[in-house]
């Protein structure tokens, strides 16, 4: 009758099971050949795919030496019944903004690196992050997928022909992107104002009274502290989260390096 109890009294159920819980975690990377870079990330059941397409455009007038990075998170109705089909809803938009902030704050890619000819031509990296299976912690998974996908982007070399002023693309010669920082997001669900669980599932997120996401970079600097409302935390608790996030950053970084290394030899 366990399933019965779960639907009728979900909160009770969780309080009872939290003490002795341990959650599985598996990850793998996939590839999309129509994209210039891609990655599939699994965090528990949560599955996120990120495909990056590079296109060329004129840089914006006010930042002539910069390219563009356009991140968008989609939560299609396929990934969970909680999302309706149609244009992105609030959660997807908030996630898109969060990813955009992480890119901006961490300076993981210098937008100057994406500029080909000052004021004339620059790369646009469209980073489309699509959730395939939504079981919570979409922010960590999205940030991770983005980083992993950026890591395997290969851009064709572009030169500007001096005579004609036209750009020429050499599709045969491809270069990787320079990734300057490796931001890693770690989310916690706040439970009953005191208990913090890392990497919450969708069910845990629903029952939690708040969430907090910490993004750190390779030098243990904070790229983002994102706590959108919910249960209040003391400074000490926040510090606790940050410390745990820093530890996790190291584990995740190791994993990325391992995966990238395993792909490279091909």
């Amino acid at each position, binding site marked *: *009758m366990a*399933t*019965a109890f779960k*639907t*009728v009294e979900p909160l009770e159920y969780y309080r009872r099971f939290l003490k002795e819980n341990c959650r599985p975690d598996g990850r793998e990377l996939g590839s999309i050949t129509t994209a210039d870079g891609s990655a599939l990330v699994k965090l528990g059941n949560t599955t996120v795919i990120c495909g990056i397409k590079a296109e060329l455009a004129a840089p914006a007038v006010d930042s002539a030496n910069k390219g563009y990075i356009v991140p968008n998170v989609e939560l299609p109705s396929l990934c969970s*019944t909680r999302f309706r089909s149609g244009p992105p809803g609030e959660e997807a938009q908030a996630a898109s903004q969060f990813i955009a902030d992480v890119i901006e704050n961490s300076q993981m890619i210098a937008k100057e690196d994406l500029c080909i000819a000052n004021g004339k031509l620059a790369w646009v990296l469209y980073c489309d992050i699509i959730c395939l299976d939504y079981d919570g912690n979409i922010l960590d998974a999205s940030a991770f997928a983005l980083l992993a996908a950026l890591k395997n982007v290969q851009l064709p070399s572009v030169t500007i022909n001096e005579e004609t002023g036209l750009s020429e693309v050499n599709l045969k010669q491809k270069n990787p992107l320079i990734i300057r920082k490796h931001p890693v997001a770690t989310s916690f669900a706040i439970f009953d104002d005191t208990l913090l669980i890392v990497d919450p599932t969708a069910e845990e997120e629903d029952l939690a009274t708040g969430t907090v996401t910490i993004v750190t970079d390779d030098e243990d600097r904070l790229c983002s502290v994102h706590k959108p409302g919910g249960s209040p935390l003391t400074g000490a608790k926040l510090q606790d989260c940050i410390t745990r996030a820093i530890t996790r950053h190291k584990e995740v970084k190791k994993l990325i390096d391992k995966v990238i290394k395993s792909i490279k030899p091909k």
Partner: protein
Amino acid sequence: MAPPARYCVPGERLCSAEEATAGSGTYTRHGFIFSSLAGCLEKRSEDSGLPVVSVVRDAESQLLPDVGAVVTCKVCSINSRFAKVHILYVGSTPLKSTFRGTIRREDIRATEKDKVEVYKSFRPGDIVLAKVISLGDAQSNYLLSTAENELGVVVARSEAGVQMVPISWCEMQCPRTHTKDFRKVARVQPQFLQT
């Protein structure tokens, strides 16, 4: 104990309709029984007549409330004419998504229907056992009834937030504050009681 289970997919021909009768998860066409589910084949021999062939999946089958089924539901709002509920279970099978249902005032009790008051029978949040009496028409949703002794409120909380104890067919009491509240109380059948 049994030979290895045979799994089948929708559209798989199981046997001739003369050899067996079609059970759940199957359909008959052109004199043959076909599977309509992806699941495990089950052949049960009845003492009299043909064996029943059915295709079963473990508990989580895709059920819908049907007329005559006893359902467990949660009251979400009440007014003077009816109570609106969410159906959570059909029989003992939990539904994957809730269905809305309505218990009209005249369907609450079997007797003295005109004296029934909705607020004296249900409160939002109550867990109620009810029977489906109609699938409803284009405008309304499932119509439910609690006009049987075994049907009615099974779980209710007092204002203090404590689960109340039934003390009669129409009253429940809070064990902490000892206040009494009116309800259409169900007499739960012993076989459903769980220790």
